[in-house]
């Protein structure tokens, strides 16, 4: 192996080890028993903006979000509806403090999101596609 190939392999390994949410695809995931197999961006956006509490079939959704400052949350909203994190935070402040709706519950990380989704038939969350577990159902891929 020449020196160039060696450096390329090392660099690739390093880059692969660095969390890079911005470049990752995200998966919107739900419990395997969810009656829907897919959702579109608009439906997911409405759930995460509190415009609806229901899945398209009318069943109640338990929406799981990531921490307010997390990179994955920023990436998610940019991909799902084009909103910046500042815009989302101002929006949720308005929704919360006008008493219209409470913000979604949060989980610490993608592992915790999936732990809730696996245990809760009505739960929905989002995780990096690379970290998606087989036990959850992918409803939407965000690229």
């Amino acid at each position, binding site marked *: 192996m020449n020196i160039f190939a060696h450096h390329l392999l090392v660099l690739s390994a390093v880059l692969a080890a660095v969390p890079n949410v911005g470049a990752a695809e995200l998966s919107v995931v739900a419990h395997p028993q969810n009656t829907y197999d897919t959702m579109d961006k608009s439906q997911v956006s409405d759930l995460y903006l509190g415009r609806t*509490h229901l899945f398209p079939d009318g069943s109640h959704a338990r929406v799981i979000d990531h921490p307010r400052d997390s990179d994955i949350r920023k990436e998610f909203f940019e991909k799902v509806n084009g909103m910046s994190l500042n815009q989302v935070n101002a929006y949720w402040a308005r929704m919360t403090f006008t*008493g219209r709706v409470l913000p*979604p519950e949060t989980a610490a990380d993608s592992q915790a999101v999936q732990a809730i989704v696996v245990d809760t038939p009505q739960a929905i969350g989002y995780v990096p596609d690379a970290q998606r577990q087989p036990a959850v159902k992918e409803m939407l891929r965000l690229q």
Partner: protein
Amino acid sequence: MRSYCHPRPRLKHSRAGFSGDPEDLPTFPDFLDSRFRGNDAGKLHIPRWLRLKPYAIFIFLLFFPGDGAAGDNAGRWHVMGYGTLGLNADDSHPKSSFVRDITQLEQDSSTTSSLITDDAWKRDTRLGLQVAFQVTPTVSVVSQGVLRDQVSSKLIHYIDWTFVAFNPIPEVDARIGRVGYDVFLMSEQRNLGYSYPWVRPPVEFYGWVPLYSVDGGDLAYNLTDKGSRWRFKIQGGSSPGLGVPIDRDDIFYVASDKIFSATVTREQGPWQLKVGYSHVTVSSEADPLDFRLGLFTALDGVAAMDIPTISADARNARRQMTWKDSRMNIYTIGMVYDQKDWMVQAELAKVVSSIDMSMNGTMAYAAVARRLGDWTPFVLVSGIRPGVGVHSASVPWGDGLPEGVQGPLNALQAGANQALNSTRMNQETFGLGLRWDANSRVALKGQWDATHVRANSYLLRPAMDVSQDVHVNQLSVNLDFTF
């Protein structure tokens, strides 16, 4: 003594009333030194349980142990808050302190040479605390208290809402209790600086609104059709009324026993359009105890004397300042375009009241903000035009009458006109500003406003001598946060 044009005269009440004899007319300067008190909120025709409920539930919710906002919403307590630290300075001369809305009492700053008055930090500064309990996925209890600069010291005026919200069916949401007055785009978020780019809702549009909340309830029907979300909402109830200072020690609680509002909102993509109508019947009188009763009595006395023209004028003046049972109709339309990089917001409203001394006018604003990462520069234009003309003594009542009567009659006429003109609003503001989102919970804002207060426009600059047009530059710095 304040000038003739000052909107908040200290008119003396003649406790003995007016006999009908012009000799008994008190001279107007004598009116100026007395105090009067507004009516008491306890006289309102609202159930006692409703009056107690908002702050009782708020205190209960506040001190009940909660688990914070994490975890499943149902069965959890949510305690959260927001606030603003504000400071403003202006170049008004002679100095007059700015008021953000008509519930604030202007400070006598005429002898101050500093750009910043002693109360400059109070106007925009506020602290809100909200406690909510999600009983079930479809039922919640919410209470919010807001500490802000306002003339009233009654606890009930610091509880903006306390209600039970429920969704009986997915398309319907309803609230019962003290709910936010909702007819304009920003009706329910006026205190929440973090939620909008500018330092405060445009004063010309929101500064005069005498309601923050309604004791009653509302019902909304939500409909989705071809990508559009429609929201049809009705709201009804009463209000103990915000306290509006009429003098340094005297408060008029603009109470209402009938409030009805209807709004239709359509959202599609980044667009939002909202049209609204609101009817308010005022149930309190501006001066039931002293101040205006003296003026009323004097005017009634002149009206009963059957002096050609003068008596008719006095009768009309008396009618135009009778707040109780007066009606206010508000028509409004607003739009928002809120896309990732740009935000455009505009509203137009017309207020028509059954008396001249109540709110009358047409008001509008337009704002454009550009998001550049954490920085959001914006420009804002707002204005208001009065719906009634200036009441002036084109023909002094005393003209042609015996000399001893002239003074008292002319003073009474001046006092009546002064009172009737005190709610006129005629001004516009051009503003430029910048918001910086320091982190996900804190935003720092700066805004420069150039306000042109036109002659005889009193309500929004109550301490200013506006016998002529006045130009004021104002600089505001606000730190908004949530927690």
